[in-house]
């Protein structure tokens, strides 16, 4: 029997509970994500999409509700290294070369030297940075750094990839190219991707499902299926249904903003 990759039920997150500056970041979240889905979480800033991602990663614990990852508690899933994480900042360690950065999780997980080298080489090939193995992070562009971060997150073959606005700080051209690369990686590795973004185009282009959230309190307002045909490419962006779906997400966001303002 297969479990959903992520199953979140009735989950709440209240920061500073019981104090005067209490903030409800998440309210009654219900969300099920099946294996090999590509999910985008989209919403205005402060809608709790990053918080939701951190709850899945068990970097923070919710104040109520249940979170199951691959049929286990979020805590157990973290201990089992079920997911890889990519942040908006590449968060590479300055003192490590590109290869050593990719190797970091493998060191922590006690891979053999041969296996470490093998996986690192494969991952750098996957993100097309084999020639930069011995470079230090500061010698790379922002886009290249983010590709290293993706390689690092995938190095130990986690079944889930959690991405917190990974391309948010990049220019439009680089972002589009990395979107293509990410889809390619997703197809090859068959991971489940949960992707937080501000960009409607990015969400529609990448995802199989877009989850729209509203702010204060952070709630899921819509769950939009993106049934554009796979594999996607440049022609997807010119597809009529692409524009229709973009509009649908935009309308959903507008509606959720109005909802948020009403509170």
């Amino acid at each position, binding site marked *: 029997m297969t479990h959903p990759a992520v199953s979140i039920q009735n989950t709440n997150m209240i920061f500073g509970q019981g104090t005067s500056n209490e903030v409800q970041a998440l309210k009654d979240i219900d969300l099920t994500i099946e294996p090999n889905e590509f999910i985008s979480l989209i919403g205005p800033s402060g809608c709790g999409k990053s918080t939701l991602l*951190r709850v899945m990663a068990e*970097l923070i614990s919710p104040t109520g509700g249940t979170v199951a990852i691959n049929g286990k508690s979020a805590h157990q899933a*973290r201990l089992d290294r079920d997911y890889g*994480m990519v942040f908006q900042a590449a968060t590479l*360690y300055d003192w490590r070369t590109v290869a050593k950065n990719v190797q970091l999780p493998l060191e*922590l997980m006690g891979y053999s030297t041969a296996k470490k080298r093998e996986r690192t080489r494969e991952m750098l090939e996957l993100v097309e940075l084999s020639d930069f193995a011995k470079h230090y992070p500061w010698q790379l562009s922002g886009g290249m750094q983010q590709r290293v971060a993706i390689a690092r997150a995938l190095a130990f073959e986690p079944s889930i990839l959690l991405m917190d606005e990974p391309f948010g700080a990049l220019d439009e051209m680089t972002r589009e190219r990395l979107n293509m690369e990410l889809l390619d990686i997703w197809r090859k590795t068959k991971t489940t991707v949960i992707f937080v973004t501000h960009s409607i185009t990015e969400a529609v282009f990448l995802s199989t499902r877009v989850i729209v959230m509203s702010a204060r309190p952070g709630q899921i307002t819509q769950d939009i299926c993106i049934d554009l045909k796979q594999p996607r490419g440049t022609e997807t962006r010119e597809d009529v249904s692409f524009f229709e779906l973009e509009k649908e997400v935009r309308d959903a966001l507008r509606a959720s903003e109005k909802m948020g303002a009403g509170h």
Partner: protein
Amino acid sequence: MKERLQRILAPLVVLIVLLLLWEGLVTLFDVQQFLLPKPSAIVSNLITRDASATGEQLFRLGDGLVFYRGAGLNPILAAARFTLKEALGGLAMGVTTGLLVALATARWLALSEALLPFAIAVNSMPIIAFAPIMNNWFGIDNPFSKMAIVALMVFFPIMINTTRGLMLVDANSLELMRSYAASEFEILRRLRIPNALPFIFSGLKVAASLSMIGAIVGEYFGGPRIALGVYITQEASMFRFSSAWAAIIIACVIGISLYLIIVLLERLCMPWHSSFRSS
């Protein structure tokens, strides 16, 4: 290559011109020896190997053991060697304890946060004022009394810098480690310690300079005749200024060398660091 040569040559030329100017002006205006000796007179004190006047003076006053150790060496260089040993001994003790205390308290963040303000307060006190006390505790002729004052002076910058480096870790880097379910020890080893390295080296640079200051000023309050600080005070009190100046210059050279060794070590240990990125 040519640029590098130029970078080294240019300051060297400036130095030589300044020295020549100094020599010339002192001769031209017939400046009194005790006000400002000529560079040539200072240097001649450093190259006499035999028992010159100053050397004899130094060793006649010294005890048998000191005389034996210093025999055959230029008296100033012998004194420099003695003081350098004190400085290095104190530096080693202070740096080791500073690092250990920082590492120990980093394990309990609440403790380091509680300790840090005290350490900063103590660090801003003139610790050198304790030198006479140390001379009393450990014996005025015992090199350990100078090592103790150096260790005490060096301990705080090292401990404060290391603690800061261990604590000031980027939040995302820490979350990344948590996402890998890394143990506290792994986080210390693979994140906190490398993160602290630049901080530790800036502490070491301060410490290297402080170590010679601590040793020499400690000796001003008393010490064996063979020590550099004692030599300087003695020569100055007997109006032998050129040899006093020579000893001061040697102290400066040692201080600068210690600093440069730390800079070199820094480059070797942290080839990735931002301050070397231009090359």
